[in-house]
Each structure stands twice: as structure tokens, then as C-alpha cells.
């Protein structure tokens, strides 16, 4: 058994914790997805899942200290689970219940847990990036060594907001790490269809060059690799060394989101666009074979950090936990209609 796996500061407990979080995210998302079939009508609007990005999320968040902060996109279920937010409150939110994390006001796209440093999400592509940058400005002048993580997708790098923010962060040496989750797709558009770097065979991390900022690309399927790169960037940011762009290459294992339809038409979760749109079944199958959750389990089992039995127990516990979240969500009450006019103004 290796205590650190070559990544500084990760002992056995932490490694097991990392895999546990990955499993918890996966099990949560599986149940969100299944809700569309098993409880039609309970989830409304648009829901985006993090399955496939677990290693990247956990590897990133494992680098944080209490007091650090983050902001994300609409694809936001993974982060709070790792931060310790109650999956019951999260599922209840996704089900639109009063006991939800945001009281049923926000839903799937806007899970936020300020008490754990998760300041919020934007459903508008790229627009959370300057917001996280502003939080990093606050962290800089508060001088308590806080760091901000900013998560967004490959598509978001095509929004001007991305570049405007990186320029300022670099210029002001803000304590922020930009984690670009490159999952190769913006809905049904492949990254090389919309990104000049990708079309030229370059990594998206080269965009950092435009802002005299370090940019790195990492295998987002490997939580330790992510931990290493994001951790180095976090350490530099904490030391006043400024921001970093970390491109984390992931593959989302579900479709972009559930089907989009007017009320009355039942919503469902379609197959991945690689298959439905591009007929690239083999691409998808390969991604499935590289699924980061079993992959990291295999690694931990192989190097005897984790026994198969313990792994099974962890999985089982996550299943139970998330099933309870589903039940909690289903049984919770809907909000009172007239509460809709609360929280408009502070």
C-alpha cells in the first residue's frame, strides 16, 4: 500500500474518502436520472448530471481548506455532495420541495450552499466565471489565505466573460483556480466544431497564454492527477502567485441533460449525444470502459489501499444514503404557493 500515491499529503483515509465521494456523486446522479422514469413529473425543467466528472470534482475539492470558496455552472450536483451538503436537502431541491437546499426556488441548476463556501451557480454559460473572480478579489483583500475554485465547461470558454475574467485575475494575481471541465461537448456540438484550439489539435489550456497565465491539461478521470495539478495551482494561488487555468479532461457519461419539452410531454433522459447525434458508439463505449469510478476503485484495490469488501460496503452505504435522499425528497412537502414572493428583495 502506498500512503501518498506520489501525491503529497494524501494518506489512506483521504484516498478512501476521495473514492467514497466519487461513489456518492455517482449514486446521487444515478438516482436523479432514474427519477425521470420512476417518478415522472417530479423533476421539472432542465437537469444536468455530473457522472463521468466525479474524479475531477473530488480531486479538485480535495485541495480546499475551510474558508475556501467555489462557484459552478448549472451542472452543479457533484460539488456540494463532496463539501458535505445533505443529499436529502439536495434531492428535495431537485424535486422542488420546501425542505430543499434552496427552498424549491432554484432547483437542479442552482444548488448553492453558502455555509460550505459554495457561493452559487449561473445557468447562463460563462457568466459564473467573473463572479468567482470577484469572490477571489474579495479573498485577496480579506487576506485570510482563501482560495476560490471556479468550475465551468469547455463551451464556456467561448464566452467573452471567460477571457475578460482571466485577464483580470492574472493582472491582479487573484487567488483563483479556473477548472475547465472539458467533456468534449457543448450539448450536441463537439469541441472541435466550436473551438479553434481543439480544431487545431491543441489543448484548450493554451487559452491561458492569452493572459500570461499558466495553463495545464490533466486527465480528469484520475482524481490524483487532478489533485496534483489543482493542488499545485491552489498552493500557488494561496501564496499570492496568482491564478491558473487547469483543463481537466473528462467525459460526461449521460446526455447533456434531460429532454426539453413543453408541459404535458413527459421528460426523460436520452442516450448520450455521441450515440444519438453522431453515431459514435465506440467513443462512448470507450469512455464507459474508462469510467473514473471503477477505475479509481481498481487502482486503490490493486495497491491495497482499499479492500474489495470495503469498497462494496462504501458503495452500499452510498446507495442507501442516496436512496434515503430520494425518499426524503419524495415525501417532502411542496412549498406554499404564496412563498413565491419571498426573497425577491433582501
Amino acid at each position: 500500500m502506498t500512503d501518498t500515491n506520489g501525491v503529497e499529503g494524501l494518506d489512506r483515509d483521504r484516498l478512501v474518502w476521495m473514492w467514497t465521494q466519487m461513489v456518492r456523486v455517482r449514486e446521487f446522479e444515478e438516482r436523479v436520472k432514474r427519477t425521470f422514469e420512476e417518478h415522472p413529473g417530479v423533476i421539472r425543467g432542465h437537469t444536468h448530471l455530473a457522472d463521468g466528472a466525479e474524479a475531477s470534482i473530488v480531486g479538485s475539492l480535495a485541495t480546499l481548506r475551510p474558508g475556501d470558496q467555489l462557484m459552478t455552472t448549472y451542472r452543479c450536483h457533484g460539488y456540494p455532495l463532496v463539501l458535505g451538503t445533505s443529499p436529502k436537502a439536495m434531492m428535495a431541491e431537485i424535486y422542488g420541495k420546501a425542505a430543499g437546499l434552496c427552498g424549491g426556488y432554484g432547483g437542479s441548476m442552482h444548488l448553492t450552499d453558502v455555509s460550505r463556501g459554495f457561493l452559487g451557480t449561473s445557468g447562463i454559460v460563462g457568466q459564473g466565471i467573473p463572479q468567482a473572480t470577484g469572490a477571489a478579489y474579495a479573498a485577496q483583500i480579506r487576506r485570510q489565505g482563501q482560495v476560490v475554485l471556479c468550475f465551468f465547461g469547455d463551451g464556456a470558454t467561448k464566452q467573452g466573460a471567460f477571457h475578460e475574467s482571466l485577464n483580470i485575475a492574472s493582472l491582479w494575481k487573484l487567488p483563483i483556480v479556473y477548472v475547465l471541465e472539458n467533456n468534449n461537448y457543448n450539448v450536441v456540438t463537439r469541441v472541435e466544431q466550436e473551438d479553434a484550439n481543439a480544431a487545431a489539435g491543441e489543448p484548450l489550456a493554451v487559452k491561458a497564454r492569452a493572459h500570461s497565465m499558466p495553463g495545464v491539461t490533466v486527465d480528469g478521470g484520475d482524481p490524483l492527477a487532478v489533485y496534483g495539478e489543482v493542488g499545485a495551482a491552489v498552493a500557488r494561488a494561496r501564496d499570492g502567485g496568482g491564478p491558473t487555468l487547469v483543463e481537466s479532461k473528462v467525459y460526461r457519461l449521460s446526455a447533456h441533460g434531460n429532454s426539453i419539452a413543453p408541459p404535458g410531454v413527459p421528460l426523460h433522459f436520452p442516450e448520450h449525444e455521441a450515440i444519438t447525434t453522431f453515431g459514435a458508439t465506440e467513443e462512448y463505449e470507450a469512455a464507459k470502459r474508462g469510467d473514473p469510478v471503477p477505475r479509481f476503485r481498481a487502482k486503490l484495490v490493486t495497491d491495497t489501499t482499499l479492500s474489495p469488501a470495503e469498497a462494496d460496503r462504501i458503495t452500499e452505504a452510498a446507495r442507501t444514503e442516496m436512496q434515503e435522499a430520494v425518499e426524503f425528497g419524495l415525501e417532502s412537502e411542496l412549498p406554499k404557493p404564496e412563498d413565491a414572493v419571498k426573497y425577491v428583495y433582501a
Partner: protein
Amino acid sequence: MARELPYIAAINEAIRLEMQRDESVLYFGQNIATTKNDPFLQEFGSDRVRVTPISETAEIGMGIGAALAGYRPVVELYMAEFMLVGMDQVVNEAPRFRYMTGGQVRVPLVMKAGYGFTAGWAGQHTGSIYGMFMGVPGLKVALPATPADAKGLMATAIRDDNPVCYFQHYLLLLDHGEVPEGEYLVPFGQAAVRRAGTDVTIVGTGWTVGRALAAAERLAGEGVSAEVIDPRTLEPLDTATILESVAKTGHLVLVDQATLHASASAVIAAEVADAGFSYLKAPIRQVTALDATIPYSRPMEEYVLPNEDKIVAAVHQVLGSAPVAAT
């Protein structure tokens, strides 16, 4: 019997027919035509049909540039809120070029986006923000409420030599209705009287037209005859048809999916409170969304939206209060 089509298919038919008719019509935007199987791509080729990155500012700006250079782009923007990231292009660039150059150029550009998706899409994807585009000199705004209008207004928008915001309603996408085949144009600035009536005028747009019609049906059961008007375009706005109706009914109820102060109904109310004042027998009542961001959860979402009950209640109020105004 005439052919029926869903609203969404009617829009696509209009684009397709206009692209067949005029080689200068382009169609581009996010997440369209990403494979060879795309029917627009197959029929019109990758010069005229292109997927763009998630870059609304550039997409709309490029639409303007291509229009200045002689083309007629239709930019697919999916949701009206996404236009906000490129809002300067929409309201401070496209509609100003012709004027600022003393008439040297034209900007025939259709900015096509959906709106009003109050089906659990929560705070940032459900807006009814057409009000922001009203009163912008040089800009036109179309809000189709039926499949036929969806086709006819799109065709007119594409042929218009000015920038046009074409806002389709997300809740109507699968609504079926009769749609004329072949060339079909609905003129801008001509309201449709969706139901004739004598006691009260109800004006709605997009999805609220259907709510107003349902309310009118219910009112008919009570012996109240409501006239329902759909302006179809907000710019130009056909106040004449509304005034004519109010001259007859003396009562006006406006239904709007936007909040009160962001509504098109406020603009209409203000026009009628001037030019139609002498016709009015009662206050003008607006039935709008309540002053809240659209919440995710269904009971709260329903609570903030206009509906038939609220429309019927407003009609009762204006009819009931008529004697007050007469004193």
C-alpha cells in the same frame, strides 16, 4: 381541410421556404447542423447553415456584419435571455447602423429566440423579456401565438430590411394548428382579433393569448362577451385595432407574462389611457406575472403567473367598477 402543423414545424417551414426563395438568407447559431444529417445543412450547404460556438455577442455581431455586407442572416439564439450577453449588439448596434450612417446601410437580421419557458426552468431561463426590446428605434419585435403566425411572421421577419427580434414561445412549441402551405406572410403591425366580443377587450401575447381565450370562453358562460386581441408584433404595435375594440367595449384587461413594470401591457395601457381615454368606462387592469423571479417549484411558479382565474377576476373588476367611472 387545411393542413395542421406544430408551431415549431411552422417556424422551420418558413425559414426553409425563405432560404429556397432567397440565396442571401443564412441560418446559423448554436447546436444546429452539427452533423451531415441536418436537413437545413443538407438542403442549403455549409456556406449558408453553420453551427456557432457559445458566443452570443459574436453571433449577433456577425449577423450584423453579414447583413451590412448584403446577406440576410437568421441567428438562432435559443433563449431570449441568452441575448442578454450580447445585448449591446441587439439594441445599441443592429438598430442604429442605418440611422447613424444617414441611411447608407440596412441591417436585415432576424434574431430568433424562445422565451417564457415557465415549466420548471427556474430563475434564469424563463423570462418574458420582450419589453426590453420595445421602444428601441429601428428594432422590430414579433411574438407569434399560433402556428400560422409562427410561419407568417418568420417569413415577414426574414424579408424585413430591419433587425427583428422573433420570439417564439417555449410553451407553445408543440401546439398544433392550421398553417397555410407555400408562401405565407403575416404583416407586421397588424393585430389579430382572436375572438369577437362586445363587453370587454382582453389583449394578450404569445402564450397568454390562449389563457385569454380560455377566460373569454368561461366568461361567455356567464353572459360576458369578451373580445380577445393578439397584437402579434410589439414593434410596430397596432394600437388602432385595440382602440377600435375599446371604443366598442369600453373596458380593457391586459394579460402579460412579464412582471408589471416590464410588461408590454403597460405600454399598451399607456397608449389607451391617452388616445382611448374617452372610450374607457372603467380602469385598465393588467394581469401580469407577480414581481418575482420565476421560482423552480411548481406551486410557486403557478402562483406568480397570469392564469384564467386572474383574467376572469380582472374582467369582473373592470365590469363591476364601470359605474364608478361613470360618476
